Each structure stands twice: as structure tokens, then as C-alpha cells.
């Protein structure tokens, strides 16, 4: 078993507790540079000095995604912009994205976590790594890129798109490890088969950004002949690298020196014990630019009780869903409220709409049925097509996702009394 940083990866509980308390205190102090936290901590009547053990964290206020959105753009930065060297964004619940910033120290810590993960799954400077995720504002691209370089891997920033070229590179460059969404990996496997290009050099597949089932693991491992590893993270917590499967494939190691983990009942906020499923709440312990206290991830998992033979710390179970209504479409987070926001801003659209999510040939497809506003029907088919294209473009601009908009007759969509159920996820449940 190889380690990137053996001392910290195998730290013993007593020592870990001390380190976590120290880092939690530092994090609270950093958070005090953010007006939002200043007020919240004042309200709660608590300061860094009141923390003497990690369980004291229950006295701190939660942070929700909505809070971050209200801080748009730089309201959650705890350091002057001068010290921020990178900005990423992630989809927000409505029109505006959530902005995350990084200091040089943050980028160093983040790439270190990725290097830990890659080393943990057996990758090294002997490997050729193709990173097939978005290299823009999405943290998966640059996050993995710098971590992989740090760990010494030969890194190919192939990003997304052009599946044929991706396959040719894997073949021609003898790529040994890939990172992408699990659904894209299945698509890739099928295209490679059609093109009759063997991908024999592959041995490791890292799959993240969307939840995937054990059945999908079997399929991925059979079709690509790789060992599949689950990767978890989110932009608010640097990005990918927060938790990762080790070769035991029995839960994900979450890096306790960097993230203080709680599992809560999403309805009541009450803490849950080991093996009890609930919402993952994380307080990052080393973030400088954007410290967060008790961040509600919305992801459902549980803390596992068993000791891992690899010698690293406590694991969390693979993720099974969300506590809110966020959808993950082709690895991209989508809030139904974003869709509603876009549709309501287009005058040709009448009030009602429905969203259907399907998986077609392993790829997620989002169909949005939209009622057009009566008064905008000119009688011309060409005008209807223009309206449809305009809606698709507006959605694409906000969601960064291609959608399939279907215009339907006014009055034909269901009307809801009380809470509307406008999103139907028809993908097979895990």
C-alpha cells in the first residue's frame, strides 16, 4: 500500500481530534472576516475559544447553498481579492451561480488531496492519465489536472467532447487511467466498440460528478476492463478530492484532517450516529479564501463503523441521493428553480412546464415541455421553431447543458394545487 502522506492519512484518533480542534478554531477565526459569519457567530454567542472538542461544532450555525448565493459574488471571501488566485463557479438555485475562490495555499491543499487519492488507488508517475471532464468553471477539470501533475502522472487535459478523438488518444498514448462521469464512460466504451478500437492499456477508471450504482460499476468494469473508483467532491469544498474509494471498494475515505464530517437528519438538523443515513455536513478545516462552517452538502450518506484494512481513517458510504431537489444531469448540477427562472423570463412561455429526465444510451437527456403563451402564436411554424430555439439557447446559457424543449399546446400540461411536481426523473433508481 502506497501513501502520498502516510502520517496524515493514517493519523490516530486522539491526534486527529487535537488537529481538528486546532484547525476548527483557526477556521472560525478566518470565518470572522466574513460579515455573514460575524453576525451568525454573534447571534449564536460563540467564538473560536469556545471550541475545546470537535463535538462542540453542534453549537455553530449551519451554512446553506442559498446563503452562498446571497453572498454573490464575493461576499464569502475571507481574504482580500489580492490573495485570491483562482475563481470557479457552480450552479446556483436560481439565475446566479455560486462563486468560490482559492488562495495559493488553497490550490496547494486541494491538489495535495487529489494527489493523495490518486496515490491511494495505485497511480503514480508510471501512469498516463486522461482527464475527460470540463476544464472551464467546473472544478473537476483543473482540480484533477493539478493534483495529477503533482502526483507525477503524465496528464492529458483532453476535456470533454469529440469522443472519437478521446478514444484515439487513449489508444495511441497508451493511457492507463481516465477520469470522467460514469455515464460518459459507458458512452465511450460503446463508441470504442463501434470503431473497433481496443482500449487495452486502460486499467483504472475514476468516476465522479454524478451518483452511480453498483450495477453500473459492474458494467463499467466489464466494458472498459478497468477497476472503477468513486470520487466525491463539490466546488464549495475545493472541488473533487473530498472523498474517494480506496482499493477495498467498500465506502469512500473522507479526509478528516481537512474536513470535519457530520451526518444529520436533514429535516430536524439533529446529528445521526454511525450507520445512520442522513445529510452530509462538512466543515472544511484548511480552506483560506472561503472558510465555511457546517456546510450542508445536500448529499445523503452515512458514516461507516468498520476499520479499513488500508489503514486510513473512517469512511462514508457511497452516495444514494440528495436531500433537496437538485438533479445531476451528465455530471452537471441542475436545480429545477434554475429552469423555472429561465422559463419565466421568456414572454412567449406560459406559466406551466414539465421536466422529464431520461437515460438514453447511458447519457442523461432532459426534456422540457413548455406551454407557449397563446398570444404569441402567429400561425407560422417557423415562428414556433424560433421560439423553441430561443428557449433552448436561454436554458443552455444558464444550465450549461443541452436540453430538448418541446412546445406543447396551451392548457395541456397538468395544473398543480399546492406543491407542484414538475420534475419527473425517469432514470433507473440506484
Amino acid at each position, binding site marked *: 500500500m502506497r501513501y502520498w502522506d502516510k502520517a496524515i492519512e493514517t493519523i490516530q484518533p486522539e491526534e486527529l481530534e487535537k488537529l481538528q480542534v486546532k484547525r476548527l478554531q483557526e477556521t472560525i477565526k478566518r470565518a470572522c472576516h466574513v460579515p455573514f459569519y460575524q453576525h451568525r457567530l454573534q447571534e449564536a454567542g460563540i467564538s473560536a475559544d469556545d471550541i475545546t472538542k470537535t463535538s462542540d461544532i453542534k453549537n455553530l450555525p449551519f451554512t446553506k447553498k442559498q446563503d452562498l448565493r446571497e453572498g454573490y459574488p464575493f461576499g464569502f471571501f475571507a481574504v482580500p481579492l489580492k490573495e485570491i488566485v483562482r475563481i470557479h463557479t457552480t450552479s446556483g438555485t436560481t439565475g446566479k451561480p455560486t462563486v468560490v475562490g482559492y488562495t495559493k495555499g488553497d490550490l496547494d491543499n486541494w491538489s495535495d488531496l487529489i494527489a493523495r487519492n490518486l496515490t491511494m488507488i495505485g497511480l503514480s508517475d508510471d501512469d498516463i492519465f486522461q482527464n475527460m471532464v470540463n476544464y472551464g468553471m467546473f472544478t473537476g477539470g483543473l482540480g484533477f489536472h493539478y493534483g495529477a501533475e503533482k502526483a507525477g502522472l503524465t496528464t492529458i487535459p483532453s476535456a470533454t467532447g469529440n469522443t472519437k478523438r478521446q478514444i484515439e488518444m487513449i489508444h495511441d498514448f497508451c493511457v492507463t487511467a481516465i477520469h470522467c462521469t460514469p455515464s460518459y464512460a459507458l458512452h465511450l466504451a460503446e463508441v470504442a466498440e463501434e470503431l473497433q478500437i481496443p482500449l487495452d492499456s486502460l486499467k483504472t477508471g475514476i468516476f465522479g460528478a454524478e451518483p452511480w450504482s453498483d450495477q453500473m460499476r459492474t458494467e463499467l468494469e466489464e466494458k472498459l476492463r478497468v477497476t472503477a473508483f468513486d470520487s466525491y467532491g463539490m466546488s464549495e469544498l475545493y472541488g473533487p478530492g473530498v472523498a474517494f474509494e480506496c482499493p477495498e471498494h467498500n465506502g469512500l475515505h473522507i479526509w478528516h484532517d481537512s474536513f470535519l464530517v457530520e451526518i444529520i437528519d436533514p429535516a430536524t438538523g439533529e446529528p445521526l450516529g454511525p450507520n445512520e443515513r442522513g445529510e452530509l455536513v462538512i466543515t472544511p478545516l484548511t480552506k483560506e479564501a472561503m472558510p465555511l462552517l457546517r456546510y450542508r452538502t445536500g448529499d445523503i450518506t452515512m458514516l461507516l463503523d468498520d476499520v479499513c484494512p488500508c489503514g486510513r481513517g473512517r469512511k462514508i458510504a457511497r452516495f444514494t441521493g440528495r436531500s433537496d431537489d437538485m438533479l445531476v444531469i451528465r455530471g452537471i448540477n441542475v436545480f429545477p428553480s434554475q429552469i423555472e427562472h429561465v422559463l419565466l423570463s421568456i414572454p412567449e412561455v406560459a406559466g406551466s412546464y414539465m421536466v422529464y429526465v431520461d437515460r438514453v444510451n447511458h447519457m442523461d437527456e432532459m426534456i422540457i415541455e413548455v406551454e*407557449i403563451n*397563446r398570444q404569441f*402564436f*402567429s*400561425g*407560422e*411554424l*417557423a415562428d*414556433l*421553431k424560433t421560439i*423553441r430555439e430561443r428557449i433552448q439557447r436561454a436554458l443552455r446559457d444558464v444550465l450549461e447543458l443541452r436540453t430538448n424543449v*418541446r*412546445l*406543447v*399546446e*396551451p*392548457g*395541456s400540461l397538468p395544473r398543480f394545487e399546492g406543491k407542484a411536481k414538475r420534475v419527473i426523473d425517469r432514470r433507473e433508481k440506484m
Partner: protein
Amino acid sequence: MEKESYLIKQVSLFSENKPGRLATMAKAFLDEGINIKAFSIAEADGFGVIRVLVDKTREAYDKLAELGFNVAYTDVIAVIMRDEPGGLYEIAQTLANASINIEYSYAYSGKDKAVLILRVDHVEEAIEHILNAGFNLVRQQEFL
């Protein structure tokens, strides 16, 4: 104006492409005693526009709107064609010479005559050129 008398009001319906929509429209016409003189359907990825010329245009529009259809009037013209080889060519060429674009068109060929229904970009010019070339246009009341 003389030219305006040649404008024919087509009833255009927005319809999803799903079973029963055409039947619903046709049943409404049956109930109201409305006769269809010509019609066509244009389709685009799940939805379409049904275009009809009827004897009682206003009644058709009102009835369809009452049934919840999204309806609009569209001005078209109807040219009488020679019902023999070259009939369509003469008219199409006349419009081409005048640089008038046909947005869409449909036709019917009956016992006594063949009629080409046209939706064009410059309707008044189209009427002028068609009349000057010696063709006859059908007036709305002739559909009654």
C-alpha cells in the same frame, strides 16, 4: 383595395403531434357544419401547425378557440392552375421572376379546377404579378 379582395383567411392551429388532435378538430367542424376546402399539416419535432381553408372561417376560428386550441388567421392566396403538365411551373416561374419567395404552399385538384394555395413573403406584389401574368385568383367568398 382590389388586391385585398384576393386575400384568403387561412385558419392556423398550433397542435402537438399526438393521436387524436386532428380528429378533435375535424369533429368540431362536423358539429358546426363547417366544410374543409383545403388543408395541410406542417410538422417540426413533436409539434406542428394545421392549416385549413374552410367555408365558414369565423365560425371555425371561434369553435376551435373555444375548444382550447391555439388559433390564428394567416393571409394566403389561392391561384387557379391549369390541371395539366406545366400548370404549377407557370405560376412558380412567375413568382420566381418577381423574386417573390414562397414560404409554404399546398394544393388541391378537383373536378373542375386545380388550386394552388400560397403563403408568400410579399403578398401584394405576388397578387399583382399573378394577375398580370393572366392567372385567376380565388376570392374568399368563392369558397362558400
